């Protein structure tokens, strides 16, 4: 039997769509399963064969909120993620702008050096940071996390912004200057509107990375400034076997950022070029 060209094309199309669906199902399944388990009783959570249909209960969520004050941790996460990102942006936008449009001989080297600071392993400087924070009375405060998160993401933000600004044709700026724009006007009225997409996606990536940061959160905070990853880690050890409660608290911890990510995914897909698009 001869399969026509059109049929071939259709079969190919359908196979591709099917493959995409299967892959999406596989990748999303762990998240789906976590959310589902959060609505089970502890007994149902470890039942064999695994339970897909059951009467959902909200008990776990109530217990989690009662026992560990989810809202406080969520608020800390929110403050540190947005604070760190904002601080990094305030520092990065002018620098990246200046480097992209008035870069000198050493601009590339400075950028590479910045990126190389990201490669310093955090554990190598944990003790000094801990001691500095201690001596400034900043242990277990959101301030110290905001500063660390900002420094942590600054190189990546710089890199993203620099490569995004680079795509803006400098003729536009020159035209602006001819018309008598000052540097500040130039940034406000020409660069920012054009670079908005890049700034937004850099901010999004930074917020996601801050929200999920665990190393510093676990090691520098305790009861007062703990963020959600630290809360989850505290559930890992003694209560590790209570899967339903663990799933409930995990769902609560991840839901805000995952939903946030869903809404912003278009922006992320367009903005994360890292200068790799040409």
């Amino acid at each position, binding site marked *: 039997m001869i399969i026509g060209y059109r049929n071939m094309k259709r079969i190919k199309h359908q196979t591709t769509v099917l493959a995409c669906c299967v892959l999406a199902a596989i990748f999303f399944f762990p998240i789906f399963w*976590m959310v589902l388990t959060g609505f089970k009783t502890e007994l149902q959570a470890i039942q064999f064969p*695994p339970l897909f249909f059951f009467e959902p209960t909200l008990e776990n969520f109530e217990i989690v909120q009662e026992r560990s004050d989810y809202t406080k941790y969520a608020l800390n996460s929110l403050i540190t993620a947005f604070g760190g990102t904002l601080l990094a942006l305030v520092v990065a936008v002018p620098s990246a702008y200046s480097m992209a449009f008035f870069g000198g001989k050493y601009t590339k080297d400075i950028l590479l050096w910045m990126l190389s600071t990201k*490669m310093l392993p955090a554990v190598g400087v944990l003790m000094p940071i801990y001691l500095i924070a201690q001596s400034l009375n900043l242990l277990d405060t959101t301030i110290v996390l905001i500063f660390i998160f900002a420094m942590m993401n600054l190189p990546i933000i710089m890199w993203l912004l620099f490569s995004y600004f680079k795509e803006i044709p400098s003729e536009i700026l020159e035209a602006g200057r001819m018309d008598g724009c000052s540097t500040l006007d130039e940034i406000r009225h020409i660069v920012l509107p054009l670079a908005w997409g890049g700034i937004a996606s850099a901010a999004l990536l930074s917020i996601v990375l801050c929200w999920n940061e665990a190393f510093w959160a676990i090691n520098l905070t305790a009861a007062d400034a703990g963020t959600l990853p630290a809360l*989850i880690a505290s559930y890992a050890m003694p209560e590790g076997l209570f899967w339903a409660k663990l799933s409930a608290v995990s769902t609560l911890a991840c839901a805000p950022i995952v939903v946030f990510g869903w809404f912003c*995914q278009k922006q992320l*897909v367009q903005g994360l070029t890292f200068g*790799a698009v040409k």
Partner: protein
Amino acid sequence: MKISVNKILQAPSVVLLFLWMIVPLSMTLYFSFQRYHLLYPERSGFVGLSNYDFFLTDPALGVSVINTLTLVGGVILISVILGLGIALLLQEAFRGRGIIRVLLISPFFIMPTVNALIWKNMFMNPVYGLFAYVSGIFGLPVVNWLAELPLLSIIIMLSWQWTPFALLIFMTSLQSMDQEQIEAAEIEGAGFWGKFRYLTVPHLGRAIGVVVMIQAIFHLGVFAEIYVTTGGGPGHDSTNTTWLIFKQALLGFDIGVASAGGVFAIIVANIIAFFLIKTVAKGMAK
């Protein structure tokens, strides 16, 4: 005039990052030559290289370096291949592609501690886990993942989270591919592999570089996944350099030795960074 304005604009980021780097670094360097044990604070002073001697002769060191490299290499390999494959599949236009894309990138937003706990408990648990259940159905032997294959387990967790990142970058990059060029190639009779080999791969070269470099940066310091799952064990089977130093500092209370380890980790990271920047980043910065 212009130059000084630029200096003012650039100074904050450069100065802040420089301080962020140099202050802790010099303290770590200083501590690494000191006797500094939290349980014996009265015994302090200069000890020369003995902290380094202690750290470098630790039999776990070699294992941890190999584990670190395996982890970084394994995750990068898996996520680049899978991410590239999925990104190419997703080029096909169909209804509901937006939702499929959302589902596929979701794991990237899951925090590492949650990621590790989901896999550890609900999938890899040898008694109640779904993997055990599935292998039971097929009559296969049950694998106690975290005890028998701890490093592979962590590679799976990380790949699940970072394949979506690779996918994001590749999708971004594929969007800018020249459609006319592709059509021209098709008219000339280029098949899938021809287009892949001579158009897609060269176009994605830099995107692959970005994915490799960013992931290397993150995976060299993998911590949370080990913290909530294996604790570096069994033995040292899943101990990476980060974990080894963490154990020294916070579980062994020995700041001196941990600092020596920190200096060692920084040197290793710099060697890797040097090669990465030489090969990957230079091309990116043009």
